[in-house]
């Protein structure tokens, strides 16, 4: 049972990691990397480390995502301030 959960979550993590590296949209990639952390925190609970799971859930999937999104919104605001569109963001 635990083994099946481990394999399921592992495959989901790998898929989310691939999405994070290869998706077209940056916000999707950022959210996918948050999903990787969230699934990792489930695995930490399975492996008897609830302290680490709490930290990973609070930091890896919440604060890191927020920090990424803040940085991305700053980059976009710099790009939108440029009059010409030579500042390329995608």
């Amino acid at each position, binding site marked *: 049972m635990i083994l099946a959960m481990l394999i399921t979550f592992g495959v989901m993590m790998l898929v989310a990691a691939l999405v994070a590296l290869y998706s077209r949209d940056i916000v999707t990639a950022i959210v996918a990397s948050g999903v990787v952390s969230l699934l990792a925190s489930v695995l930490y609970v399975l492996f008897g*480390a*609830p*302290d680490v*799971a*709490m*930290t990973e859930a*609070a*930091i890896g999937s*919440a*604060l890191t995502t*927020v*920090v990424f999104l*803040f*940085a991305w*919104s*700053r980059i976009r*605001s*710099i790009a*939108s*301030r440029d009059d010409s569109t030579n500042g390329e963001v995608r």
Partner: protein
Amino acid sequence: MFKRLFSLVLVVALAAAFFPLFATIGDRGDVSPLAESYLADAPDALGSANLVTSVIVTYRGLDTLGEVTVLFAASAGVSLVFSRLGSSSDGRRPVQNHAPSELVVTGAGLLLPLIFVFGVFIFVHGHLTPGGGFQGGVVIASGVLLALLAGTLTELSHGMLSVLEMLSGAGYVAVGLLGLWLAGGFLDPRFLPTGEIGSLFSGGAIPVIYSLVGIKVGAELSGVIDAMRRRRVVE
């Protein structure tokens, strides 16, 4: 093309370096001798139920002190990098700005005290249940983030943050020195009574140290979040 090949070679080299690990690692029934002695001795010696907390605060206490210092350095670095960026070219065209809706403001007002109390609960109970200074500090930083997003808090006072951080860091070192003076060594928490395992006042100075770590981490991460947040351009 060459670069792609090079990265592929690097990944393959990583796999080769990992291969002995795959071959030797298996399910073990025992832990290392050091961990075994921690598991056997730590609850009686320190009176703290959560062994991860004992390791972080006491056995690897100096590590944690250095780690909090690294966090401080990173937080200062983020503020430094963004302090130049914010004022140089901002304000030419106001960013389109949507005030948070009334529901969010009211709900944040209801939730914020709960979140802060929860964060304090996590780091005060760090020696009894999973959790501790780092987790509690992060919860407090998330509360600060919610307050910033909901507009409950428009400007974070950096003076207050640095005072909090300074006091908690100095308190951390002071508690460590007290351990050196009154008990076995630097950061030895046994100068306060260890108490009974499972009660709130147990573990000697572990709750004190972890609360200080919690305050410090909360202040540092709030500083990072506040520095990274895009300033609302006010005309």
